[in-house]
Structure formats: structure tokens, C-alpha cells
């Protein structure tokens, strides 16, 4: 905007591990610059979705425009772009970083540097961001800023001499941070008169105005009435609104190179405004898009089924609505013999999957059965035809399979040295390949493994946390497909195969997994009026057998005049409980049984 020349704009983000105080610091910056009054600050602004807040994570990026009068007497526009705080959303993080020139690296003064921080710092460095280390929570008794400074220098290789000591909670160090942003983060460069190039770093669906697109204008300028074009999809729209985020949306005349803001253009579908895409003008289009666009690829799949078959249409509507806002959520109808009609859904990772499930259950009040998460296998059939299998049920019969490849991930683990043995033991149990181990300091190690994604999504992170008393942290990235000797494990209940319980497992582990799965199911399936045999089978071979014995006693409360109503209520409750279970053949199976494969070993 004209009153703020490009030289007085700073675009930055905050990089921090979960719980290191990113949201509190963001709140303080908003408050100190007078962007919002204290009353408006009652809640943390940036993490606004309830599930995110409960888990202390950010899934969607958000932005806020701060105006700061610096010591030189000039007003500066500081655009803070929030980044998603979880490895599942690495790509979104990279797009948010691409919209910035600098980053605050917030490290907890007592916790120190963690694997995820490291991963995000590397991402930031790749984008040539100026990184300002901030050591937060210096007010806490366990704070050791000097130790953390050493970690920042040794683990990350950043100069921590000018690290700012801060207590976002108490507001200490915040003015210094604002000055450092002005002084040390470079102003954006860009040609305000050149062809338009604006990077989409987030979007959401608004039922009145269509998709609201968050952008960083890199070159040129955009205003209401312009016809714009999405360079990846080619879709064209007429801009109906542009504005800045204070953090409420505030329309302005135009947004020029260097600025961060939003635009609306009656876009009906988030698929047409994908994160990472470049917006240009339909006429006088930029020659090339900004670099780095990728289409989000789901890594984890599961089946979602309504417990009550009547809810199928509601589930479809709810998924449709969620997908309006979440371009990385994929879903398509599928049918299970055991569970009826449902959807195969693809997610960026396990957390993404959990968040979507929680939203469906909480916001749309749906009772769901989720099948155990699976990955996508590349199968070559004996007739030479390649097949992609993201549901164990669709695995071709063993004698039709020439080879199977599965996705591997590179996992980086940071752990105190005393837990190295425990971490190695865990990693080895997950078919992983050891790549490297470095001592970052005398008592901190970085270990790198490659392991099948399918092994990582079965509670690897939880196990890592519990075996290291919570001290280890990890990050992962996709490392490509590799051949593996895999087999399909089937589960039979009362003699009938239950397709939704099938799993793909490594041949060497299959019998063992089968035994544990059968054992876990025995614990999860309640006693019924009859005995329920549970069998695990590989092909025709039964590898494990367990039995849920029949109910032994469930009767003999008295039942006279006054008891009838009460007794009825008890029976109704019993019936209600049965309704929440899925009847497969004669057997009633509780929801959590379909996730049993994840609970092995608990």
C-alpha cells in the first residue's frame, strides 16, 4: 500500500516445536503493536480451531498484519505468517516459509532444540530466510539459556550470540524482538509494476464469498475487478475483494509486491486455489509460476464407515464439506462386506487422519468406524500389470503377485544419549535400516533411519516417546518405494472372514502379528451369547486362534412392580451399547476393534 513503501515491509514467520510458546509470542506481538486491544486478545488468535487448540498445534496457516513504530520513528508493516506445527503438514510449512524473508526461531529455554524444530529450520534455510533465534520461557525455573544457546550453535549451526532472551508470557524481550525484525530481516524485493505473481500459502472456504485465498504478492499488484488465473490449474476468476489481515479481514484497494493479504474471487472449490500455486493476471500473465508447487499426496489411508448404515449420506455430506476446506483430504466411496458402504480416505499423515475423524465425529455428530490405517502399495501382477493398493482387501491373491513395493520414510530422531539403546531397539523392531548417528553434543544424538511408512504409522511415535520418557523427538520425509516381502493377513470371526480387519504385513512378522492381533481382538470383543472363535490366517493357513468365551452371567436382578421401568432402562442401555457396535455376521464388534492392529503390544 502506498503509505507503506516496500522498504518498510517485513514478512516473517515463527518456527517452534509444539509447546515452545509460539502462540503466546504471537499474541504478545499482536498486543504490543496495538493491533488488537487487550479485550480482543482474550483468546489466542492464531490457533483458532478448537481441536488444534486442544492439541496445541496449528494445522492451517494464518496471517496477521502488525504495524510497528520503530526506534527510527517510522511505521513498519510486519506480516506474521503462522506455520502449521506438525510434520504431517511439511508442505504447507514450506509454502508459508516461501512467503517470508525471515523467521523467528523460538526455542524453549528448558527443553532445548527438538527434531521438528531442526527440520523446520532446515526448511527455512533452504528458503534463504534470515533466522532470528529467540530463547523463550526464561521465566521458568528450569530455564538454561546458555545451554540452549550452545544447542542452537552446535545442533543447528546458527550464531546464537545475538539470540534474544524472552518470556512471551510476561512480555519480556518482546520490544527487542520487534526491533530485531525491523533491523535484521530484509525488506521484500519485487517489481511492483511487473506481471502479477502471488503465492497462495493457505485458503479456506467461506459460504458467502467462496474460497478466501491467503497470498503473498511477489511481483506486480492485484486489485478488485482483475481477472486472475491460477497457473497450475488454469482456472480463471474475477477478483471481488482484496484485503489485509488485522487479523480480521480488512478490504483495501490493492495489494502490491511485498504485501501479504487475502483475496476473494467467487472461487467455489479449494481444489481451484491450491496451496503453493501462483496467481497471475489472465491478460499480461507471468511467464513462469513461482517455484515449489507440489500437489499434496496422501500418505496414509483408512476406511471410514458410519456405525448406523442410515448415516451414509450424512457422512458423504460431511466429507464434502471438510474437503471444501482441505485440499489434501481425498475420499472415494468403497464397500466392505463387513461394514457396508463407506469411504476410502487419504490423508497427509496420522495426525491429519485423527483430526479429520475427530471433526467428523464432533462437528457433524457422526458415529464412525475407522479401519486401521494403511499405506499405498505398488503391486506388479504376474501378468505384468501394475496395481496401486491402498486397501488390504484389494490385494490380489498371492499367486497373482509378481512383486510388491511399499513406501519408505527417512526418519530423523533426536534423543538424549542415554536412550540411544532404547531407540535403536525400537527402530530395529520396525524393519528399519540404520543410516547414521551423530553426537550433536556429548549427551545429544541424532539418529537417521529408513523404515517402511507402514511401520511408522503403527504407533512408532508413541513408542518412541514412552521409551525415552518423552525426551526424544522425530521428523520424517518420504524416501521412495522399495520392494518388500509382504503378505495379507486375514481375520476370521466365528469362521467368517472380516474384510475390514485384514492387514498387509511383512512375511517374517506375519505369524507374530496374527497372534497378537487375535489376542487383542479377544480383549476388545465383548462376550456374546455364544462363543466366538477368532482366527488369523495367511492364505489358507491359520496362524493363530483365540476364543471369546460366551457370556457367563447377565441376569437375576429382581423385577417387581417398581423395577420394571428401571429394568427397562438398563436393558435399553444394553441395547444402545449394542447399537454402537457393528454386527458382522452373528458377531457384534465394537468400533475400536477395527483399530486393534494399532494397539498390539499395549
Amino acid at each position, binding site marked *: 500500500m502506498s503509505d507503506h513503501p516496500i522498504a518498510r515491509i517485513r514478512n516473517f514467520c515463527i518456527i517452534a516445536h509444539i509447546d515452545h510458546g509460539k502462540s503466546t509470542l504471537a499474541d504478545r506481538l499482536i498486543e504490543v503493536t496495538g493491533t488488537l486491544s487487550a479485550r480482543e486478545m482474550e483468546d489466542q488468535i492464531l490457533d483458532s480451531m478448537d481441536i488444534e487448540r486442544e492439541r496445541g498445534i496449528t494445522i492451517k496457516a494464518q496471517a496477521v498484519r502488525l504495524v510497528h513504530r520503530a526506534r527510527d520513528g517510522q511505521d513498519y508493516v510486519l506480516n506474521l505468517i503462522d506455520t502449521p506445527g506438525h510434520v504431517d503438514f511439511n508442505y504447507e510449512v514450506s509454502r508459508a516459509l516461501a512467503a517470508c524473508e525471515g523467521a523467528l526461531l523460538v526455542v524453549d529455554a528448558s527443553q532445548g532444540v527438538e527434531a521438528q524444530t531442526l527440520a523446520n529450520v532446515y526448511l527455512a534455510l533452504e528458503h534463504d530466510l534470515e533466522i532470528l533465534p529467540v530463547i523463550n520461557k526464561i521465566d521458568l525455573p528450569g530455564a538454561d539459556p546458555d545451554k540452549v544457546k550452545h544447542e542452537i550453535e552446535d545442533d543447528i549451526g546458527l550464531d546464537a550470540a545475538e539470540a534474544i532472551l524472552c518470556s512471551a508470557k510476561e512480555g519480556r524481550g518482546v520490544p527487542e524482538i520487534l526491533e530485531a525484525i525491523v533491523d535484521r530481516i530484509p525488506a521484500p524485493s519485487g517489481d511492483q509494476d511487473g506481471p502479477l505473481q502471488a503465492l497462495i500459502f493457505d485458503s479456506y472456504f467461506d459460504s458467502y464469498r467462496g474460497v478466501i485465498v491467503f497470498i503473498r504478492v511477489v511481483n506486480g499488484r492485484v486489485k478488485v475487478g482483475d481477472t486472475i488465473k491460477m497457473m497450475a490449474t488454469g482456472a480463471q476468476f474475477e477478483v471481488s475483494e482484496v484485503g489485509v489481515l488485522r487479523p480480521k479481514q480488512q478490504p483495501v484497494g490493492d495489494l502490491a509486491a511485498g504485501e501479504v493479504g487475502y483475496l476473494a474471487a467467487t472461487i467455489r472449490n479449494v481444489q481451484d486455489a491450491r496451496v503453493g500455486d501462483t496467481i497471475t493476471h489472465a491478460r499480461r500473465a507471468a511467464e513462469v509460476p513461482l517455484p515449489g508447487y507440489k500437489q499434496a499426496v496422501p500418505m496414509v489411508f483408512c476406511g471410514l464407515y458410519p456405525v448406523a448404515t442410515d448415516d451414509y449420506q450424512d457422512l458423504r455430506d460431511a466429507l464434502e464439506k471438510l474437503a471444501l476446506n482441505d485440499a489434501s483430504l481425498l475420499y472415494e466411496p468403497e464397500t466392505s462386506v463387513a461394514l457396508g458402504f463407506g469411504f476410502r480416505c487419504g490423508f497427509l499423515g496420522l495426525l491429519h487422519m485423527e483430526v479429520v475423524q475427530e471433526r467428523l465425529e464432533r462437528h457433524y455428530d457422526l458415529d464412525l468406524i475407522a479401519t486401521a490405517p494403511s499405506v499405498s502399495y505398488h503391486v506388479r501382477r504376474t501378468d505384468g500389470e501394475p496395481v496401486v493398493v491402498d486397501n488390504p482387501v484389494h490385494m490380489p491373491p498371492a499367486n497373482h503377485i509378481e512383486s510388491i513395493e511399499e513406501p519408505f520414510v527417512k526418519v530423523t530422531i533426536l534423543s538424549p544419549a542415554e536412550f540411544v539403546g532404547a531407540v535403536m531397539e525400537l527402530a530395529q523392531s520396525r524393519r528399519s535400516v540404520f543410516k547414521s548417528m551423530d553426537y550433536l553434543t556429548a549427551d545429544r544424538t541424532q539418529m537417521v533411519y529408513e523404515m517402511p511408512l507402514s511401520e511408522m504409522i503403527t504407533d512408532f511415535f508413541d513408542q518412541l516417546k514412552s521409551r525415552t520418557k518423552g525426551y526424544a523427538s522425530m521428523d520424517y520425509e518420504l524416501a521412495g518405494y522399495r520392494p518388500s516381502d509382504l503378505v495379507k493377513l486375514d481375520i476370521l470371526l466365528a469362521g467368517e472372514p472380516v474384510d475390514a480387519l485384514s492387514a498387509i504385513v511383512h512375511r517374517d512378522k506375519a505369524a507374530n502379528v496374527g497372534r497378537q492381533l487375535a489376542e487383542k481382538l479377544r480383549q476388545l470383543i465383548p462376550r456374546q451369547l455364544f462363543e466366538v472363535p477368532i482366527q488369523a490366517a495367511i492364505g489358507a493357513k491359520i496362524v493363530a486362534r483365540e476364543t471369546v468365551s460366551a457370556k*457367563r*452371567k447377565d441376569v437375576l436382578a429382581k*423385577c417387581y412392580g417398581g423395577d420394571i421401568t428401571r429394568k427397562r432402562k438398563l436393558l435399553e442401555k444394553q441395547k444402545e451399547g449394542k447399537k454402537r457396535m457393528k454386527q458382522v455376521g452373528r458377531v457384534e464388534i465394537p468400533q475400536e476393534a477395527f483399530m486393534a492392529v494399532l494397539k498390539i503390544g499395549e
Partner: protein
Amino acid sequence: MEAYVAALEREISSYSGCAMPRGGVLDAATLYLGGGTPSLLEPGLLERVLSAAHRHFRLAKDAEVTLEVNPKTGSTALWRMARECGVNRVSVGAQVFDDTLLGILGRDHGVVDVSRTVGELRDAGFTDISLDLMFGLPGQDQASWDATLDRALALGPEHFSVYGLQVEPGTAFGVRAERGLLQLPGEDAERQMLDLLVAKMAEAGYRRYEISSWARPGHESAHNRIYWLGRPYLGFGSGAHSYLARRRFAHDRTIDGYLDQPLPAIPARPQPIREAMEDAVLMGLRLVQEGVSFAAFRRRFGKELDEVFGTAISRMVELGMLELRGDSLRLTPAALPVANGVFAEFLE
């Protein structure tokens, strides 16, 4: 106490004379004084309650009239008065023959009180005595249950009502169970207790005619049968329940609430017909010998039993939980210990 009895008298009288259509008097097949502890009554007050019932209802000469007895209360004078007023059956809340367990249950009587009371009742001339027993109690083991059964049988009552403890949310036990403070025997141990009960009763010549009731032939409770057959009944006093004209209604549970509002609110609408049919099956199946009669169901509802509950019946017959015997549907022996699972199938 006097005020309460007076209120009872007023309530009982409201069902006769000008209050009723055609100024008539209702027939009553049985009378049961139970609920709290009617044996707390002074003999004179007991007499007033019973005579009110006789005045305002037409009770047959040999009608079953039961008095519930707490073994800690009552006196030979009370038993004598009860006999004179036509009480011909007593139900004694023995529960267990184990003082520690009685303490846990919060009962104020001891084992000695049970034997003494039964002796007094026999001396007073009662020939129809029922004992209430309980199992599945926190801290109860097989040996203790075995001893309870032996001592109960040694008293030679004509009838037994036996229940498994049902821990319900909101009760003192429920709260403790939620906090994990209750050491319940568990399902398998309860089943063992149940099996022992069934065996000992059979051996001693008692017939199981209802899920939780055993009797010497001819001593089955006529009153309870009314509940199980879904016939109408009227309850008077605090906490008493009634079922009349297909409406269920009840008094306030507290005595003060009852004195405030001595007439219960009767629902405007009868219970839904579906619910009445479900109740007919749930309650009727409890009568393990008779079962639910197809003919009686047809007469009462104008529909066939298997037309309404076809799916549940065929599923349970297939699982060996129900059997069709002549005109009736009955629980199989295998279903008796787990009958709740069968009942739940019939709910919509």
C-alpha cells in the same frame, strides 16, 4: 408414622365409592405390604392399613396377603395382629448369612435376627414364608455363599427370591465401583454362585418358576405373577408404583413428598403399544416354566407374537436361547444365566 398411615388410608379410599365409576368397589386378587419396612408399624397402625384395604377393595377370602419383614424389626405382637388381619404370607429380607457382608450391604440386622424372626413367624402360625437372598456381593466368595444357602435351606421356608447384586450408577455402590473401590466377584465367580444356587435348590425340592424365584409346589407368589403377566396393579404410599389402564405411574420416593402430594400424577396417555408388547415379552419370559403364551399375547394385543418379534425370536431360537413349546415361547436352560442378552434383543 400416624400421619403417614392416615394419608395411606385416604389414598386407598380414593379408589372406591363415589370416586369410581358406578360407585363400585374394585376387585383385588392379592395384597402386598412391602417397599420400605412395613414391619416397623405398630400393630394398631398395621391393622388400620389392612382394614382400609379390605374396606375399599373386594379381596377374595383366600387372597394372598404378604407382609415384607425386616428381620431387625417387628414383634410377636405384630405377627399376631398380622395373622388376625388376614396376612397369610411373609417375605423376610435375609440377604446373606454372613454378618460382615450384611455390614457391607448397610443392613442393620444380623444373622441371628433372621433365625429368630423366622422362628417367631412359624410360632405365630405362618405357613408361607419367603426368604430374600443376594449373591455377587463385594467380598463374597463361594464358601460364604455355600454357607448362606445351607443355613437358609435349614430354615425350611416355602419360597426363595434370589438376586445377583446389580451395581447401578448413582447408588453408593455405583460411586465406589466407578472409583475402583469395589471388589466384586466378577462374572465367572457369579456364574459359579448361580450354578451352586440352582443345584442346591433343585436338590432341596424347590422349583424355579421364575428367573429369580424358587418355591415348593403350590407356594409360588401369586402377587409377583401379576407383574410378570403384565396385569394391572395399584401401589399406595411413597415410592409405590402402579400400572393401570396401560399407564405406569409412581409416587414421590420420599415420605414428605408423599404427604405433600398423596395422589400420584397419572399420565394422560397410555404407554405406547410397542412398549407394552416389549414389556409383555421381557416380563413374561421371566416365568421360566410358563413362558410367553402366544394365545395370551394375541388376546391382549390382537397381534401374533412372531409377527411383532419375528427377527428377535428366530435369531434367539437359532442361538439356542429360546424354544417354542406348545403355545408358548420360553427361555432355554442355556439362556437362564444370560437372559438380559435375550431380553435386549426384543427392544426396538
